[in-house]
């Protein structure tokens, strides 16, 4: 299969995706920290 052309994302969409990414990583860190403290 031929590779698809890259989609053009607006600057706003890129900022939104990065904000969501950072938000998800922060929440994951909180869940993992809480889990580690509970186990310890």
């Amino acid at each position, binding site marked *: *299969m031929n590779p*698809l052309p*890259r989609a053009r994302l607006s600057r706003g969409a890129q900022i939104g*995706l990065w904000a969501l990414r950072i938000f*998800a990583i922060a*929440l*994951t860190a909180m*869940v*993992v920290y*809480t889990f580690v403290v509970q186990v310890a």
Partner: protein
Amino acid sequence: MTPPLQLGAPPLEVVDGAVALAPSAEELIRSRDRRRVQDARRHGRRWYLMWLLVGPGILAMLGENDGPSMISYAATGATYGLGMFLPFIVVTFAMAAVVQEMCMRVGSVTHRGYGQLVLERYGPLWGWFAAGDLVFTNLVTLIAEFVAIRIGLAYFGIGPGWAAVLGLGLVLVTISGRRYRSWERVVLGMAIFNGLFLVAAVMVRPNWSHVGHAFLTGSPFPGGSFNTLLLLIASTIGATVTPWMIFFQQSASADKGMTKDDVRHGRFDTVVGAALAAVFGCGALIVGAALFTHGGSNINGLAGAGFPGALSRIAGGGVATVFALGLIEAGAVAVLTISASTGYAVGECIGVPHSFNGSGRGSLVFYGANIGAAAIAAAIILVPGAPLLSIALNANVLATVLLPVALVFMIMLARDRELMGQWVNGRLTNWVGVAIVGFISICGAAYAIDSFLQTVHVIS
């Protein structure tokens, strides 16, 4: 009618200046499966056509009725009884049906898995982020699946070593056919036994008028600790819509060779899967609710044989046996589907063959990731003193927290007109998708932040 090899999109090779078709063994196998579909369609054999095309949707939905999900539903019933969570399970599976329909449609139209599409359309960074999230949550979830098998076997006095052997053995046996179709049919056959939770629900003889009242009114609304309630809401969402389902159904639809012509059947497959999963999930909650007035909220021995043992004392040995068998099935099917999604994701992002139809050295990465993920999880449950209960309970929450990113990309792909053509999302589907992302984000964030603030003693 679509010619069989056109969908597999065989690579074009230039040999001595001439362009020659060079279909791989994987594509030849897929084309044979497609020929059956085309023959059934040509001869108007509607039920046979349906039988040939169902699979990815039912497997994604019943695969997600996995060990930690069923334990979570039963724990919810034992803690709060019948009430808000009964209709909530139905609502979450309706959300899952909307999301999974998009996955099936995108996979059928583009013939590509989710990881491959994200990587090609939005770049390697986002593709690897998606695959990284998936591998992380899949490893945690797989551990939880082995815990569920271990709980079920423990009720029959069988040790944890056999749980590891059973789960890993099933992965090896099901992939040994080297055919997507045989893998799918074997796992579908196993997944039907998810209905054991419905059998157990009937056996506990609930008051059906109470069940109907709870279902229609969502009352009584659960009381008690706000954090526990948030945990159960986040767990229930994580028990119905997860990143692995997105990867699995889109990749499996592509691996099965589904096309635009099959979207209608794919929708049926997805909706039937969601309906079955909702009914069986409600069954697990009803079984758990039988313990509600018998100190159900204090059943902490889930890492051993707490739930089946408690059911045995309250509802009888028959119910406990069916519930324990259900847990073994739920864990086993999920081990197969989740390790498959790991194989698809890794293969798609590395850019190597990623199909159950594949064989030989080219498919080593796909099969290696498939087996490797299950083997790591199996090894962890054998570690003495490992916090298996905490892992099992946090697996769904972790999936809920990481889900919004995967969902946003899914919606972006499904509304991409350049990619999807006439099969692009309608406006209503887009808005429903955005509402689902918003709802899941708020629920996941509320639990994560509330738990974290309690842990660091900012709130009590």
